[in-house]
């Protein structure tokens, strides 16, 4: 394995990180939107969202990715590997985020909401100033956990030809007939990223527990 090979795995790391970030940034608000639809019990649509979340949570990312990558062109929607990858990540993570947001919304104290109503706050203002800041704090550990899970499923994107860390490592292994060293480099790249997120999650939980104990 040459220096150039290691560099190409680092290039893969850039792809892995950008795709994960795209998935996280698009998936977060969509998950919140889905959770709000279920929370507000919008007729019919809430049912559809419940079904969507239930199916998506049970679907392996590989299967979802293959479905999108092969079936969308079949019904006339052209799609390249990168957009298929982002779409699959967003669909997958938004379903999990929806559950995290929803459980925070379900546990939101009703009296605060009613108090805001009684002083005449509009629905939008009520949500932005009363509900959102509190559910963000409650959901944060769960959302960070979901981010680390998302990064751990990104190697699947290599299946449709996205050159991420895993695909770069597999290619070098196939060229040099020495698969173990590039895989170990790949592990050395993934582990710190995931470990940082896991540590962030524990830190947030500890800080919140400390704040609660002080209160």
């Amino acid at each position: 394995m040459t220096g150039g090979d290691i560099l190409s795995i680092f290039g893969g790391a850039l792809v892995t990180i950008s795709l994960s970030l795209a998935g996280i940034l698009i998936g977060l608000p969509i998950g919140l939107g889905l959770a709000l639809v279920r929370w507000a019990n919008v007729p019919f649509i809430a049912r559809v969202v419940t079904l969507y979340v239930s199916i998506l949570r049970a679907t392996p990312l590989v299967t979802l990715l293959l479905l999108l990558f092969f079936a969308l062109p079949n019904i006339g929607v052209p799609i390249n590997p990168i957009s298929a990858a982002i779409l699959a990540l967003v669909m997958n993570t938004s379903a999990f985020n929806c559950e995290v947001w929803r459980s925070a919304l379900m546990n939101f104290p009703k009296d605060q909401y009613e108090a805001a109503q009684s002083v005449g706050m509009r629905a939008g203002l009520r949500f932005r100033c009363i509900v959102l800041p509190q559910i963000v704090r409650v959901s944060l550990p769960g959302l960070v956990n979901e981010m680390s899970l998302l990064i751990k499923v990104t190697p699947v994107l290599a299946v449709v030809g996205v050159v991420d860390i895993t695909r770069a490592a597999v290619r070098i292994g196939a060229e040099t007939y020495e698969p173990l060293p590039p895989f170990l480099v790949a592990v050395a790249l993934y582990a710190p990223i995931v470990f940082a997120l896991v540590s962030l999650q524990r830190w947030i939980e500890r800080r919140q527990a400390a704040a609660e104990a002080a209160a």
Partner: protein
Amino acid sequence: MIHDFGIVWSERALLLSGLANTAILSTLAAVAALMLGFVMTPAVMSKHRIISGAARLFVDGMRCVPFLLFAYIVYYGLPSLGLRLDNWSSGLAALTIYNTAYMAEILRGAWVTQPREPIEAGIAFGFSELRLFRRIILPPLLLAAGPVIGNQVIQIIKDSAFLTIIALPELTHAASSIQSRHYVPFAAFITAVLLYWGLCLVIEAGVSSVGRLADARR
């Protein structure tokens, strides 16, 4: 479109054998990972610094590595160390070892929240170590950890789909091979998705019946 599903229906034997392989693989891995998790948990909580440190390293390390990469390492990487496994054994080994770390962490989480009194009472009654574990510690632990273990089993089912990359003939592999031979991508993969969903609904139903049992015993 209906015609596409007709093609999938004509290939149902292949899909069903894929579903059966997914179910068998996930069940074997889940049971083995749970058993190994039970061995791992006392090691993580051990008073010996070296044992608990090594166990912690394994558990935390596994949880930082993507499963797909781990499966690649077991299947393609180990042969260069002289350990050559076929795709079934390496798939099963990867799935089991990887999830042992998660099971150990789940069981540790449930273990530390268990009340001390029944265990101390058991010791006072002169239960031997093994009987104490089997009769006093294990039942409430399993009931308390039930829902989280169920979630992990669903995770195992989803992880098993990754093994399609090492050509293990599970459900996603079956769907891919139908799609590549007949070019019916939507019908083939949506059928696979619905079958996965069905499997997960079965697990969820199982978990909630265990939950009812736990409530009845309380």
